[in-house]
Every structure is written in structure tokens, then in C-alpha cells.
């Protein structure tokens, strides 16, 4: 409970809430679209850089198990999401596949919120997590698109090209490579821009995200009760499994919790763009509402503290 409150009362989370309120009181607040795009570019590139730097100081051997686990879960979570969305959620093939692509990929902001929560809780984390984030971003989307079995051959190839060269992935991977090549000393020169103000920039970004999410929440009714439940169950299910596995492959408890939040999260930056292009018949009213309107706030409020709790106590169960 204490953990939950600690997590909720932070500038980042409150900025998200402020954005939602802005919509509800019908404020004329608006983040100009150019500014929003500028912020996105900044955040993705910065997170890549950070991950790259930490990669450059992590021995490869230490990385193998976590990276393998990430890949495996990146393939399994969209399958599991697809299964539940079809069976319990009663979605059609295309909508289920589109939504599964979102749950297979990852929400960068949830990841960052988890990192912060771990910092506040004082638990030890793992420096290479941003690299895993980049690894986790892509496969889920591709599996999701394959599940739709709609676009084949050239269409599928084009879709995969679009996902990989899409600006979100491109910037994050680009930042990762630059960070890894430069290492900590050379990145120090750009740290006052890319590292120190990062969390502040995130506040403004979340202000906008809150506004968008508030619009989405109005669509919840249309989505139906079953889907809302799934939007809470899927992150719990995927995230808990991921947390426990992470502890099992030797990650620090803090790192395992972040890993759980990552795997449990649903993308709302990279995946929607890819899905809109490749599966135009899938309804954004379903996949965006679930990922941004249900799963994201759920993780912020409940998911992250839970994964923290689990990570702290998993070692006992495991041994």
C-alpha cells in the first residue's frame, strides 16, 4: 500500500493525471504536435543512449541469459495474449492479433516508471535493462502481425521493414549503438541534455499522454467489461511470470521487477503505427483503448508495486 502510494505520488504519474483532468474539465490545453514529436524523438533516443552506455560496460557473458529470456518472452507473450483475447475476449482474428502485437511489445514509459519506483524503493537494479527494452520492442509486433495471417509475402516483408525502420525502433536502436560505441566518457559530454533532464521531459510527455488516455477511457464502455478485465489480467499474468523468470536467471530483485513491468506492459508508440499500416481493418478503438486506457494506468498504479513485491519475495519461493 505504502509502495503503491509512493509510486503514484511522483511528478511523472501526477503529470499523467493532470493531463486526464485537463480533458475532463475541458481545458483548452494542447501540446502542439511538433512539440510532442520532438519530445518523443528526445525520449527514445535518450533511452537508447543510456542503454548503449550500460551495454558498453556490461560483460557479454552476463547478458546472455537475460537476453535469451527476453527473446523467448517477446515471442510467447503475444501468443498468450492472442489466445486469451480470442477465447475470453471473444475478439475476431484481426483485432486479437493487432492487440496481441501491442501486448507483445513494450511501453517505454511504463519501463521508466518502473525504473524510478525501484530507485525509490532502494532495491538493486541492472544496468543493461534498456538494452533488453530494445530487444523486446520488435519481436512481439512481428508475431502479432503474423498471427493476423492477413498480409502475406511482400506485404509481410514490407510490414517488417516498416516496423524495424519505423522511427521509434530506429531512434532507440540508433541511440543504443551510439551509446555502446561511445561509452560513458564520451556520452558524459551530452549527459546534461540526454540524461539529467530526462525525467522532466517525461512529465510533459505524460501530460499529453494523459490527455490522449482520457479520450480513450471514454471508449471503455464500447470496449466492454470482458476486455477491460483482460487489460488488467494480461499485464499481471505476463508480468508475474517475467518477474519470477528474471529472478531465476539471476537478475537483481529491482531489475527483475522492472523486467516484469516491461514484459507486462503494452506498447502504445511503436505497435500502433505498425498495426495501423499492416492491419488497417483492426480497430484502434480496441487496441489503443486497452493498451493506453487500461493497461498503462493499471501498471502505473498496481502492476509495478506488485512486481516489486513479487521480486523481493520470489527468491524465498524459488529456494
Amino acid at each position: 500500500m505504502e509502495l503503491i502510494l509512493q509510486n503514484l505520488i511522483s511528478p511523472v504519474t501526477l503529470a499523467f493525471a493532470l493531463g486526464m483532468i485537463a480533458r475532463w474539465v475541458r481545458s483548452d490545453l494542447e501540446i502542439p504536435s511538433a512539440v510532442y514529436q520532438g519530445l518523443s524523438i528526445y525520449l527514445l533516443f535518450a533511452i537508447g543512449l543510456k542503454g548503449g552506455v550500460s551495454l558498453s560496460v556490461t560483460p557479454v557473458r552476463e547478458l546472455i541469459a537475460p537476453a535469451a529470456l527476453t527473446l523467448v518472452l517477446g515471442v510467447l507473450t503475444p501468443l498468450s495474449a492472442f489466445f486469451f483475447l480470442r477465447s475470453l475476449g471473444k475478439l475476431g482474428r484481426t483485432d486479437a492479433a493487432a492487440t496481441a502485437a501491442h501486448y507483445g511489445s513494450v511501453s517505454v514509459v511504463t519501463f521508466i516508471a518502473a525504473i524510478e519506483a525501484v530507485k525509490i524503493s532502494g532495491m538493486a537494479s541492472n544496468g543493461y535493462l534498456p538494452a533488453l527494452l530494445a530487444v523486446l520492442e520488435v519481436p512481439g509486433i512481428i508475431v502479432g502481425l503474423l498471427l493476423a495471417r492477413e498480409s502475406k509475402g511482400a506485404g509481410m516483408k514490407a510490414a517488417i521493414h516498416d516496423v524495424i525502420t519505423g522511427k521509434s525502433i530506429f531512434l532507440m536502436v540508433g541511440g543504443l549503438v551510439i551509446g555502446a560505441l561511445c561509452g560513458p566518457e564520451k556520452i558524459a559530454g551530452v549527459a546534461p541534455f540526454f540524461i539529467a533532464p530526462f525525467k522532466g521531459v517525461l512529465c510533459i510527455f505524460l501530460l499529453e499522454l494523459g490527455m490522449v488516455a482520457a479520450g480513450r477511457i471514454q471508449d471503455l464502455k464500447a470496449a466492454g467489461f470482458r476486455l477491460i478485465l483482460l487489460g488488467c489480467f494480461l499485464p499481471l499474468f505476463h508480468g508475474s511470470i517475467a518477474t519470477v523468470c528474471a529472478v531465476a536467471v539471476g537478475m537483481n530483485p529491482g531489475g527483475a521487477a522492472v523486467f516484469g513491468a516491461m514484459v507486462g506492459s503494452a506498447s502504445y508508440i511503436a505497435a500502433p503505427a505498425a498495426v495501423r499500416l499492416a492491419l488497417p481493418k483492426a480497430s484502434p478503438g480496441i487496441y489503443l483503448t486497452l493498451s493506453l486506457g487500461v493497461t498503462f494506468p493499471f501498471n502505473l498504479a498496481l502492476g509495478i508495486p506488485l512486481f516489486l513485491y513479487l521480486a523481493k519475495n520470489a527468491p524465498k519461493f524459488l529456494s
Partner: protein
Amino acid sequence: MKKKLSLVTIVTEGILKEQFSELLQENGASGFTITRAEGQGSRGVRARDWEGPNLRFEAIVSSAAADQILAAVEKKYFESYSVIAWVSNVEVVRGEKFVGEENV
């Protein structure tokens, strides 16, 4: 000398920028102008994702090309994407710039 031509205007999702640029050029537009737009339509206000706002394409073309463009848009995009398109009559100077040498 002024020449009568057609102005095709298309408003669509930001994500389709590349595709509509190609569609216009393949169907006889010698060029086009894009402005960023925001909009509201029958599908309700769309969540603005990172793909940015709507785009508004304008192309000056021959009236045959205009029909061809509209047909292509209708066939490929109307069903699954947010697209609207309209045509109006305009007059230009230097008409040869827009329709290729053959059919001025």
C-alpha cells in the same frame, strides 16, 4: 495563357504519407503540396499517436488524372482508412508544368 485544370485535395492519416505521395505520382501528378491538418469526422476524434496529425494533400492535375486518383483512393483506402477527397476546378498559368508535354 491560363489553362483549366483540376485540383484534387485529399485529407488522410499521417501514417500514410509515403503511400499517398506514391499514389499521386503514379497517377499522373507532377507534384503535390502537403499541409498538416487536424480533423474530426465520422470516426470521431482520433487519438493522436506519434504519427502526428492528418495530412492534407493538394495536387494540380488534368481532369483525367483527377478521376484516376479518386478511383485509386476509393479502391485502396476508403474502406480501412480515414480518407476524404474532393476535386475542384482551377485555372493555372504555365499549364504544361502539370500535365506533361504530351497532352497540353
